[in-house]
């Protein structure tokens, strides 16, 4: 039996405290997408290093032989995975499975997951951050761009929800 979830207000306060701590200790916000892009650049450095060096956007990640994984956010990303794994253990929710609504096949769900991942991966770079590092952190900093980003996320999600309802409902 899975453990009952936290109350959303309590969960939100915990995440808010995590944001306060990153500023108090490190002078910056938390984030998730940065670490994932670092990892993508690291892989590309193994299979096609020329692409990194010729990219005006990625060349700074590997300038002077730098390792893209040597980044604050990568350490935080490792922490996110450790924390979630521990919580999954405590709440007995460690299980290989595909989560989806009843009206779609596993294969269909995984195609949607892939396409959604590509869109989010692209958009997180265009936005200079994701729901964590841009929407939550920037939201707390009262950044106008971050608030605009967050409202646009909901607009985009609501706009397309009807068309993908078979996947979820």
């Amino acid at each position, binding site marked *: 039996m899975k453990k009952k979830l936290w109350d959303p207000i309590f969960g939100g306060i915990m995440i808010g405290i995590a944001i306060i701590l990153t500023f108090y200790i490190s002078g910056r916000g938390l984030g998730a997408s940065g670490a994932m892009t670092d990892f993508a650049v690291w892989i590309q450095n193994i299979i096609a290093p020329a692409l990194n060096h010729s990219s005006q956007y990625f060349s700074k990640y590997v300038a002077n032989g730098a390792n893209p994984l040597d980044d604050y956010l990568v350490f935080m990303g490792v922490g996110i995975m450790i*924390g979630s794994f521990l919580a999954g253990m405590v709440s007995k929710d460690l299980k290989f499975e595909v989560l989806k609504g009843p009206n779609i096949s596993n294969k269909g769900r995984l195609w949607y997951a892939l396409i959604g991942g590509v869109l989010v991966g692209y958009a997180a770079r265009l936005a200079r951050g994701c729901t964590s590092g841009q929407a939550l952190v920037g939201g707390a900093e009262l950044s106008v761009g971050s608030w605009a980003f967050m409202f646009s996320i909901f607009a985009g999600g609501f706009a397309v929800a009807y068309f993908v309802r078979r996947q979820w409902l």
Partner: protein
Amino acid sequence: MIGPLVNNGIISQGINTLAAVLIGVLFGYALQRSGFTNSRKISAAFYMKDVDVPVVMFTAIVTAAIGLWGMSLLGMIDTSKMYFLPSYLLPMIAAGFIFGIGMAVGGFCPGTSLASMVTGKIDAMVFVGGFLLGSLLFGDLYPIWDKFYNSNGFGVFRIDQLLNINLGLAVLIITLLGVFGSIGMRKLQYKFWGKND
């Protein structure tokens, strides 16, 4: 001890890195215990079927905004040494729209996909794979969108500056927005889907 601790030389880079891991642990733990490793729960927000995701987001923002503002008033943190995110309005609005579509289609955002992947959710693993491709696409084809990416920049641009009001009043406004936004969305959830779902 006045923060930011690392910028003020109170802790070393090594301790700062350790702090990054530990704060990540807290964040990941909170994501999983809030149910955010479940793509069905995240996507349900876009049908107003379960508004826990926006409620958690608003609560986190309001908590952090009040906390940071309070700490700066008490002199516990030197905000001039904090990193503030710059605003590039049009690119961020466009990116948010694409991001939201991606979330409704894929069922995750980056942080939740990382957290979900390690609990064995296969849809999260595939989403992460897609994310890696998508961010490489952005960087490898950067010349196509670099002009747009760098357009409409306002530097650090906060709500108090936009509205030309006191910082405390701006914090109050987003607090009220968060509280009443959360209550309003919960009411809509109950109205459309009933109380038990």
